[in-house]
């Protein structure tokens, strides 16, 4: 389906070059990407490490901690690699809106099936 | 000309509403959800009435306003140019707030009712397990050791607490005139419903969740009886099958005389003679063409023997005779008013037809036709043998 679209007015060669130029300004650079990759790796290592520390897995903070860590990874990829941070707010709306509703729905379902309530009592 | 139209339309609408309302009042509604005969039903009633009342008010206001607008602002000489109003914030806020207030008026009693009706049942309630099957009902009284099918007995004045389960697909347990509301029977779940019957009588029950081919044929009856009659019924159910010949005198002691204009239960069994029941309780389902079995006389003794030696025992329990649990318990089948889950009256004619080709009487029925040579038939029974078995079953009071 990649080709099945009509291009925007700016999409002739010259414009594309201008765009590429702008891109360098508005998009993160190789340096940023390296940092992002490093942070993602560290968080992943952290997550797995936590998994093997009984003191943490047995504590009530285990699940929230993991959720926070993965949410951080999620956000970093979306903001930097998917350059949502730098891009049009149209994209932000198209993604964040559904994401928030979807997450709310998942959480409500867990409550409805008693999976969340159990966890809260169990801890 | 348009004026003419809207006037005609109003007249039409009015006539329709009035005639429908009149029809609604003048005819019998034996399964109405209103005026239910239990505490639970009355709570629901109050709420539903409130909702109906509010809906009626909004209906009259909105439709009245609509009729006024189309009459008043129709294009006509003297109304040729529209006023170009494009909005009015204050009005729009008003018609946001007013519905919000009306909704609050129903939301508050709604939540109150939810918490009231979904509270746990009182401790001393009569426990009844309702088990849905495609397409019949099994009723168990675990504390009393009674198992029966398609006909439920409840004492008035005592809370009945139902544990609703299903053996196969989803069903829904609904006795409109008794409970008003229904609860679904959900696989791998146990659902709860409880209410206290307030009048002695007999009621229709339905399966209200689509459950396959014979969903329409999954009905039941509920008999609410006095506590004494209930005890009598329980005692009888717990006893083994009582084979009652045509004119056996009543066995039990004297029971309380039944109130006038109400069907009186048989004193021996605590069950009800069909002839006494109101018309909407006795099924009128016609037999499918060709289902009739020509033999009308059967020998119960021979029937008992045939029952034992045929496939019947694989599925049906008769206390002391057979252990099958796939189909309804038949220990006291002769004392029931209906067969086939409330589908046909319980008499020789219908029993015979049922045994011969149950599938034709009740589409999808899990009981194979027992008649000889019928397509898909399991049994090898000829008409006389079928009559014998029917006679035997009828005798199981």
């Amino acid at each position: 389906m990649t080709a099945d679209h009509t291009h925007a007015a700016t999409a002739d060669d010259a414009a594309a070059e201008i765009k590429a130029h702008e891109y360098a300004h508005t998009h993160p650079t190789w340096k940023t990407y390296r940092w992002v990759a490093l942070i993602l790796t560290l968080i992943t290592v952290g997550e797995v490490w936590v998994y093997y520390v009984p003191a943490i897995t047995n504590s009530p903070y285990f699940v929230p901690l993991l959720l926070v860590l993965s949410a951080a990874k999620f956000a970093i990829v979306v903001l930097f690699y998917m350059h949502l941070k730098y891009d049009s707010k149209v994209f932000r709306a198209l993604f964040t809106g559904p994401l928030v509703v979807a997450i709310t729905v998942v959480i409500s379902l867990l409550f409805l099936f008693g999976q969340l309530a159990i966890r809260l009592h169990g801890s | 000309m348009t004026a003419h139209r809207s006037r005609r339309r109003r007249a039409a609408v009015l006539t329709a509403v009035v005639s429908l309302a009149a029809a609604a009042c003048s005819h019998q509604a034996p399964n109405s959800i209103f005026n239910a005969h239990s505490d639970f039903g009355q709570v629901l009633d109050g709420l539903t009435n409130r909702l109906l009342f509010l809906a009626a008010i909004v209906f009259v206001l909105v439709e009245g306003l609509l009729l006024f607008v189309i009459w008043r602002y129709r294009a006509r000489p003297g109304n040729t140019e529209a006023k170009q109003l494009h909005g009015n914030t204050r009005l729009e806020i008003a018609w946001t707030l007013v519905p919000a207030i009306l909704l609050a008026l129903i939301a508050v009693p709604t939540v109150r009712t939810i918490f009231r009706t979904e509270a746990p049942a009182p401790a001393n309630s009569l426990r009844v397990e309702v088990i849905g099957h495609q397409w019949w009902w099994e009723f168990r009284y675990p504390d009393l050791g009674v198992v029966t099918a398609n006909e439920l007995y409840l004492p008035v004045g005592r809370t009945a607490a139902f544990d609703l389960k299903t053996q196969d697909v989803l069903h829904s347990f609904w006795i409109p005139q008794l409970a008003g509301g229904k609860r679904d029977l959900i696989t791998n779940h146990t659902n709860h419903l409880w209410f206290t019957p307030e009048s002695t009588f007999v009621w229709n029950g339905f399966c209200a969740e689509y459950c396959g081919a014979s969903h329409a044929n999954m009905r039941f009856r509920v008999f609410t009886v006095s506590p004494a009659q209930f005890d009598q019924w329980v005692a009888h159910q717990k006893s083994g099958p009582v084979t009652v010949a045509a004119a056996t005198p009543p066995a039990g002691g004297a029971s309380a005389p039944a109130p006038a204009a109400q069907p009186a239960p048989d004193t021996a069994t605590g069950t009800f003679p069909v002839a006494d029941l109101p018309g909407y309780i006795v099924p009128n389902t016609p037999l499918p063409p060709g289902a009739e079995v020509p033999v009308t006389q059967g020998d119960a003794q021979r029937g008992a023997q045939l029952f034992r030696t045929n496939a019947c025992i694989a599925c049906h329990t008769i206390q002391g005779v057979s252990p099958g649990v796939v189909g309804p318990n038949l220990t006291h089948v002769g004392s029931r008013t209906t067969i086939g889950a409330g589908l046909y009256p319980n008499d020789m004619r219908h029993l015979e037809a049922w045994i011969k080709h149950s599938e034709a009487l009740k589409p999808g029925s899990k009981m194979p036709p027992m008649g000889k040579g019928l397509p898909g038939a399991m049994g090898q029974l000829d008409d006389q043998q079928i009559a014998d078995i029917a006679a035997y079953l009828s005798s199981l009071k």
Partner: protein
Amino acid sequence: MATAIPAGSHPAAQHHYSSTGLDNIKIAIWAFIGSECFFFGSLISTYLVYKGRSVVGPFPHTAWTNPATGQTLHAILNIPVTSVSTFVLLMSSLAMVLAHGAVVRGDRKYSRIWLLATALLGATFLGFQCYEFTSFVHEGLTIKTNLFGSSFFILTGFHGAHVTAGVIWLLTLFFVDMKRGLQPRDAVNVDICALYWHFVDVVWIAIFTLVYLIK
């Protein structure tokens, strides 16, 4: 493939006005990604709803002894292996942004290298998944075994299918690049592939935590 992906330099493009100055295809891919949130949201919900509800083992995080045979099946998830494959997928995202950057710069050499690298990393992830699935099957967990088996395989399987589609897409871009070279004006075609690819990565981030790590 002779015509290859038409570039935005079409003369006709001038006739097309856009309200936002954005590329149509990019709007569409973001809408698609929004929609995918619900797709994976439903799959993840199902997995979590059925967590701990299987009647028979094997189970993800605990051992299970079959009462009939007395045989014990140990906890099935292999965290070390999956941690590695998770890392591989993360790195493929890095390769992806580098590929996109190269295309934007018009750097033919690196665009090819990074496109291929991304696809290979994706394929490596798939290899890990194949290994994981086969070893689970050997240990007695299939889609038919229990609720965990069904919901686990279908959730991760659908993710794997997305990765597969992504690898094919990346390889297609790679071949187009080999054939006629991706120009800066093709950047949007790489960009949407990248968005898709990162989204698939992001889904894995959620799955890794919710399925593998949380006990």
